[in-house]
């Protein structure tokens, strides 16, 4: 009798742990599904000005007083990066932005954009070593580009057209913006949906 109980107890433990592993595997699979549905590369939100359209033009004063033009034809591409001092992922991306700016040199002008209390931003800018970046505060800018989540980036070409845009969470997504510009697609989702890829797969 005792042995039978011990055996059944062990079997039940094994069954419980096997079920837990199965549920965990299901949760992982759901996570992968979310990734396929949404953020694959820089996530495109279906709002605001579309990729390929002219970027809404802005003439703003930077925090150091210098004028900053956005969306106007310029000598270099403009990367508009929306951030906030209270967004940990934004801070994680700052070194990446600095290295991208260094790598692209004269071909890219990086503009940081946010809104809120100027004093908070001044302290943040100094702490994060962003003094040599143009930094604009404008609630209207974020509204016009329909930025609902941070960190968010918009890449504007020298002709003043939006080449790529999206929510950025990692270096890979950041680089996907530039890849999207080179490939001439709006986002990585579009690239995956493009017929050429399904032909390659076939």
């Amino acid at each position, binding site marked *: 009798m005792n042995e039978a109980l011990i055996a059944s107890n062990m079997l039940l433990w094994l069954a419980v742990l096997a079920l837990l592993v199965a549920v965990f595997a299901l949760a992982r699979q759901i996570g992968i599904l979310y990734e396929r549905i949404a953020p694959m590369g820089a996530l495109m939100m279906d709002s605001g000005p579309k990729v390929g359209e002219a970027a809404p033009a802005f003439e703003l004063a930077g925090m150091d007083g210098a004028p900053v033009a956005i969306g106007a034809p310029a000598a270099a591409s403009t990367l508009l990066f929306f951030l906030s001092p209270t967004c*940990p992922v934004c801070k994680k991306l700052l070194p990446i932005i600095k290295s991208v700016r260094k790598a692209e040199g004269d071909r890219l002008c990086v503009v940081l954009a946010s809104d809120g209390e100027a004093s908070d931003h001044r302290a943040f800018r100094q702490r994060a070593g962003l003094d040599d970046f143009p930094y604009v505060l404008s609630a209207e800018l974020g509204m016009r580009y329909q930025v609902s989540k941070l960190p968010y980036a918009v890449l504007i070409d020298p002709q003043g057209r939006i080449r790529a845009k999206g929510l950025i969470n990692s270096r890979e997504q950041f680089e996907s913006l530039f890849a999207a510009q080179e490939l001439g697609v709006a986002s990585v989702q579009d690239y995956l949906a493009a017929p050429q890829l399904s032909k390659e797969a076939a």
Partner: protein
Amino acid sequence: MNAATLIALPVIDPSIAHAAAAGLAAVMLTAALDKLREPEIFRDAVENYALLPAPLVPLAARALPLLELAAGLLLLPSATRAAGALLTLALLALVTGAVAINLRRGHDRIDCGCGGDQHMPLSPALLARNAVLMGVAVLAALPTAPRDMVWLDGIAIAFAALFLFGLFALTNALLRHHSRLIDLRNSR
């Protein structure tokens, strides 16, 4: 077993206490290591809770993972288990209080700073998760009834601890998915 201890604290079976302590130790150790791996992210998370004056934030962000590490290590040997369980209970009460205050303020979009590289926002479910962990910490802190342990106890303890840790990992995965589900629903 005398009458005084019976009145003061309920006595539980040693296998339950062992399993609770081992499972909780695994939870605390992984939480501490996750935070120590990305100290900047955790410091920003502490800052976002907006509960401490700015000069204290780096100190708290440094101390909290180390205290978690200490609690996890103290939970492992039987001799220091009660101390580890009480430290765990205190830490959980502290962070759960911080989450509750920010939920009341309506700051439910900030990252919980629980470790890991995926965003986990604050939610009432997070409070429930921590409440369950606090219950487990109480189980690990209670005195045990003396009893001869047999080999089957060892297996049951190992399985139960593994189960507790697996359940914790599963809860975290589901909490992260929930925020993505909400995002997806709102984006349509």
